[in-house]
């Protein structure tokens, strides 16, 4: 028997008939033989439907006509092609067999080539029907996927609108809150000056707290403002000299470099596909942190380098500063400070802004750090001439 290929069940009560049919079919198909209709139904129940049934009509137990009727009545078996192979010679028998749903009726004695041809035809027809059904199922799945994609797109569109509205609200709220908080700081400072030496120690402490808190609020609102508008300000991506952006950032940080007596080394930096202002902002935040978070009494050492990684440039800003506890905090989260209870300035916005800008540029950012030894901040930006 063939190991593969369509499975044909043959039912006949005479052993010589089964032998002849098995010999005829076994070179091309898998063949299983049974002695009557009941055995055939049992076999199907046990092993599942075959690809085709060749069946005698006159059999003891359950004859071929009754077997056919039962097979055609059951949803699981009604599609199995059935060929009657019978010695019955009345035209009424053939007509009756076909009326029960059989696909063909071959009279014995049969011509071997004719049996093979009819089996082949029926199997081909069955395969065509199977393929058509498969295609129909695939088309239905495809239609469902299209519908889901359409629904997802609608959801994305709605979320985009909501997000945009939220960003606008945040920007407006932050912008409008900043002015009164600045006024609070200014008038607080004026009060500190005009009341200097006139207040009791406790009252002076209260006033200092008011001013410090107002200042903190001013910085926080400023951070929200910067964060909310950071991707919105992004222009069309263009080739940018990252060395120039880095130098511009260092220029802005000149005072900090001078006071901290930092030494900064810059490797060869490439041209990248970016927004010049965004890249400058990223350098400014990362270099600012590297200069700011230095160990007491240790002058900051900062090294800036870049290396090609496939389609991106990977930048590294390494410092010898304090490092931070990377296991317990994500410094790229908004208002999450790497050094929350120390004396360093800042509200925890810079790294969150960097992350947001780099996401908008198609890059990413991460850090490696060791407490007390320093940190390495990495980020990637697309190389020039590559499309995302």
């Amino acid at each position, binding site marked *: 028997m063939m190991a593969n290929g369509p499975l044909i069940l043959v039912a006949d009560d*005479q052993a010589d008939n089964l032998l002849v049919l098995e010999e005829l079919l076994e070179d091309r198909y898998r063949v299983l033989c049974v002695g009557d209709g009941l055995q055939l139904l049992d076999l199907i129940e046990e092993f599942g439907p075959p690809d085709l049934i060749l069946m005698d009509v006159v059999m003891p137990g359950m004859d071929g006509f009754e077997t056919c009727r039962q097979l055609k009545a059951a949803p699981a078996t009604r599609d199995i092609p059935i060929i009657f192979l019978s*010695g019955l010679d009345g035209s009424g028998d053939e007509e009756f067999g076909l009326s029960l749903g059989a696909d063909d009726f071959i009279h014995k004695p049969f011509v071997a080539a004719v049996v093979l041809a009819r089996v082949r035809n029926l199997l081909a027809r069955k395969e065509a029907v199977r393929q058509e059904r498969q295609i129909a199922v695939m088309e239905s799945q495809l239609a469902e996927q299209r519908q889901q994609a359409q629904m997802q797109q609608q959801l994305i569109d709605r979320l985009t609108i909501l997000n945009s509205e939220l960003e606008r609200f945040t920007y407006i709220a932050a912008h409008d809150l900043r002015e009164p908080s600045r006024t609070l700081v200014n008038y607080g400072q004026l009060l500190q000056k005009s009341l200097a030496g006139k207040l009791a120690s406790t009252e002076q402490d209260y006033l200092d707290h008011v001013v410090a808190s107002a200042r903190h609020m001013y910085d926080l609102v400023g951070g929200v403002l910067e964060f909310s508008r950071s991707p919105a300000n992004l222009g069309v991506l263009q080739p940018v000299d990252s060395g120039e952006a880095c130098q511009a950032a260092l220029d802005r940080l000149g005072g900090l470099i001078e006071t901290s007596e930092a030494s900064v080394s810059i490797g060869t930096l490439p041209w990248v596909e970016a927004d010049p202002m965004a890249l400058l902002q990223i350098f400014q935040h990362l270099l600012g942190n590297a200069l700011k978070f230095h160990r007491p009494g240790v002058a900051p050492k900062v090294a800036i380098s870049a290396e090609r990684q496939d389609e991106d440039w990977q930048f590294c800003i390494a410092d010898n500063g304090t490092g931070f506890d990377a296991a317990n905090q994500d410094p790229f989260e908004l208002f999450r400070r790497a050094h929350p209870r120390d004396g360093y300035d800042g509200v925890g916005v810079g790294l969150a802004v960097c992350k947001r800008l780099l996401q908008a540029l198609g890059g990413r950012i991460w850090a490696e750090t060791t407490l007390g030894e320093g940190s390495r901040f990495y980020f990637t930006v697309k190389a020039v001439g590559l499309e995302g």
Partner: protein
Amino acid sequence: MGQVSKAPEARPMVTRPCDGLYLEGAPVVDWVSLESRYGGKPQFVVRLLKTVLQVHEATAENLRAAVRAEDFPRIVLISHGVKSSAGNLFADGLRVRALRAEHLARDNDPSGLAEAELLAGDVEHWLGAVQRRMALPMFGSSQ
């Protein structure tokens, strides 16, 4: 092998005095057609012949019992089986006889009893020819 086998019977096979179904001297089984159909598979032919002998071992006896009992449905069933096997073995004369017996018995025609009786004899004759054929060393010659 390298040797030619000869049929054990030198004289031609003649069936009972017949009614035109068998030609005198014609073989009961068309061995040439049978071997041609299964050319290259002599072992299969042996297996088929053995199976036929087993299947029809009691056929003649059963047929005669049915005749005695005038059991027409039984005659129909047995004749039908003989007809089928005769077709498998290219025994056309026997097949025609079985067909006739089946038809007459199906119609409950009394002449079907006589036809069934003749069929029983033909079956015996047929099985005898099959047995003799099987005695040949691997069917090296035609009967």
